């Protein structure tokens, strides 16, 4: 019975090619849209977390104030002495980099470029996973004396020097000349979307003396040895800094301790919300596809009711007719689902290449949208048929 009914179902699909095609099309578009959106969203999330790990592994950032960003409610900045103290007290700290930032303009010959100068030490390069493309980092003497030397990022090089090797040249920052001693390898965009290569690094003392005019350090970056517990180090850092900043037991911290994992969670959380949003929009298109199928099925119900009448009259059992319609619906919706998945895979791979994000196959969303589409097809293909097959054969035959 199953074999014969399968034959009948396939014949019915074949003789209504247009209707079958339209049914499949609705599912194909819906499934492809949902899968593509979610896959691209996942890829974007992955890309963000990859970029965060490119910032450096096992990285802890200390920021004054409780809020992200500048202007943090008057909490005092860090001091250079904090760096020494951390180095002495936190054994697993591999690198401790104080950072003082100043936005300014760099000039070379006739070219000028607005960038951010970071004052730090050689630990800055270690903590941030920076590698040198040319030249060298700072010498101890340069750091101590606050000499006018700098290491520049790839973007600054391109803007000021074009393709030339900048090492040995002098650029002008504000009113002083500064010798370029090193060039950093390009790292690309950061997780926040800013250009990490748009940077000029100088010894901390140079920046403090010549640009900011204060002893303040805006930020501390601590890199921890592999295998060390980040959470334990964070606790130790918090205790240490509370003590150094004279915070009473009942008072809250006036600084934040962030690690890259936390940052990753915050940022991937954002892209995940976007993914869900895109997925929801795509789910609407799947629903619209479903309504399209419902429409086609309902329009064809008159013709199909008469067909059911004919089948019943020549001796088909009600369950044989229903099984046939069920098979038809399942075959069409699964076919649509499979084509949709194939299309989505192609589109996702092409688009993630275009958007420069990794392609991640998500079995969950593939299965989910496949079964959702199959359910739509089966519900709208089968239930009108069930009503018709329950009629007296003569009523089904006379259906207008």
């Amino acid at each position, binding site marked *: 019975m199953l074999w014969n009914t399968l034959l009948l179902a396939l014949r019915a699909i074949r*003789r209504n090619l247009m209707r079958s095609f339209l049914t499949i099309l609705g599912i194909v578009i819906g499934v492809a849209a949902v899968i593509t959106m979610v896959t691209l969203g996942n890829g974007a999330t992955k890309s963000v977390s990859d970029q965060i790990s490119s910032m450096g592994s096992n990285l802890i950032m200390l920021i004054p104030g409780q809020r992200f960003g500048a202007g943090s409610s008057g909490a005092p900045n860090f001091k250079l002495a904090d760096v020494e103290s951390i180095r002495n007290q936190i054994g697993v700290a591999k690198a401790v980099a104080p950072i003082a930032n100043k936005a300014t303009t760099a000039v070379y010959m006739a070219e000028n470029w607005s960038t951010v100068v970071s004052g730090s030490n050689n630990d800055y390069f270690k903590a941030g996973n920076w590698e040198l493309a040319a030249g060298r980092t700072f010498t101890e003497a340069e750091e101590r004396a606050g000499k006018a030397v700098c290491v520049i990022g790839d973007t600054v090089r391109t803007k000021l020097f074009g393709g030339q090797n900048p090492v040995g040249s002098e650029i002008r920052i504000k009113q002083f000349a500064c010798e370029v001693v090193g060039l950093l390898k390009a790292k690309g965009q950061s997780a926040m979307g800013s250009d990490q290569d748009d940077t000029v690094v100088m010894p901390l003392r140079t920046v403090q003396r010549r640009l900011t005019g204060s002893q303040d350090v805006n930020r501390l970056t601590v890199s921890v040895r592999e295998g060390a517990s980040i959470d334990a180090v964070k606790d130790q850092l918090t205790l240490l800094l509370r003590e150094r900043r004279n915070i009473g037991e009942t008072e809250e911290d006036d600084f934040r301790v962030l690690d890259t994992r936390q940052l990753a969670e915050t940022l991937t959380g954002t892209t995940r919300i976007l993914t869900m949003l895109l997925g929801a929009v795509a789910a609407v298109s799947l629903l619209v596809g479903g309504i399209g199928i419902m429409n086609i099925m309902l329009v064809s119900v008159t013709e199909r009711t008469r067909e059911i009448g004919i089948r019943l009259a*020549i*001796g088909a059992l009600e369950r044989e007719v229903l099984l046939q319609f069920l098979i038809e619906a399942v075959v069409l919706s699964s076919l649509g689902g499979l084509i949709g998945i194939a299309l989505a895979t192609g589109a996702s791979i092409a688009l993630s290449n275009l958007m420069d994000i990794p392609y991640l196959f998500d079995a969950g969303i593939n299965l989910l949208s496949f079964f959702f589409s199959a359910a739509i097809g089966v519900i709208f293909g089968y239930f009108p048929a069930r009503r018709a097959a329950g009629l007296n*054969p003569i009523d089904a035959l006379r259906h207008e």
Partner: protein
Amino acid sequence: MTDATALIRLSGITKTYGQGQAAFLALKGVDLAIEPGEFVAIMGPSGSGKSTVMNILGCLDTPSSGTYVFEGVHVEQLTRDQRALLRRNYLGFVFQGYNLLARTTALENVELPLIYRGEPAAARHAAARAALEQVGLGGWEDHTPAELSGGQQQRVAIARSIVTRPAVLLADEPTGNLDTRTSQEIMDLITALNRDRGITVLMVTHEPDMAAYAKRTIRFVDGRVESDQLNGGAD
């Protein structure tokens, strides 16, 4: 059970459509018996109940009361599926509107009842081809109803009804949509099936010319059998 040889026996069959005030009594107690091998024309004006009795005889519809015995089986006690199996194994239908599956070839239309019977593909194809040959449509196997004339479509429908070698052929206004000449060809075909293969034929018609092909005419008026007579000499 006075007549033990009867193939079909209806006693006190009534059929009511609708309920309460709007109820309409289409059949008001019909008794009739049909012997194997008969060719019966059922006539009557529209609304007389001739089609209703035909649908009940064909197990396409159920009576409101009364008994219907087919080869000793009480049809009114059968389940829906059992009635379907009775149609599948004993009855063949020809309708006024042909009722072929659209966009489906003649061969596939004819073999449809055999598929439900579970016949293997080779036997099915052979039987369907033979049936089409018999109705004079050899060579038209691959044509769809849209590519066939009305008379040809009705021939396909007849081929479909006889491919299972049914005991009874029920024809509801089989020539109603056809011109006179084609009607005569169809009636000749049905007559031959009755004569040569012994298929019992029950045919509803309102045309006396077509009824004349039958050996017996039952006339319905107002939901009752008005007259039931043998056609003298018509063969």
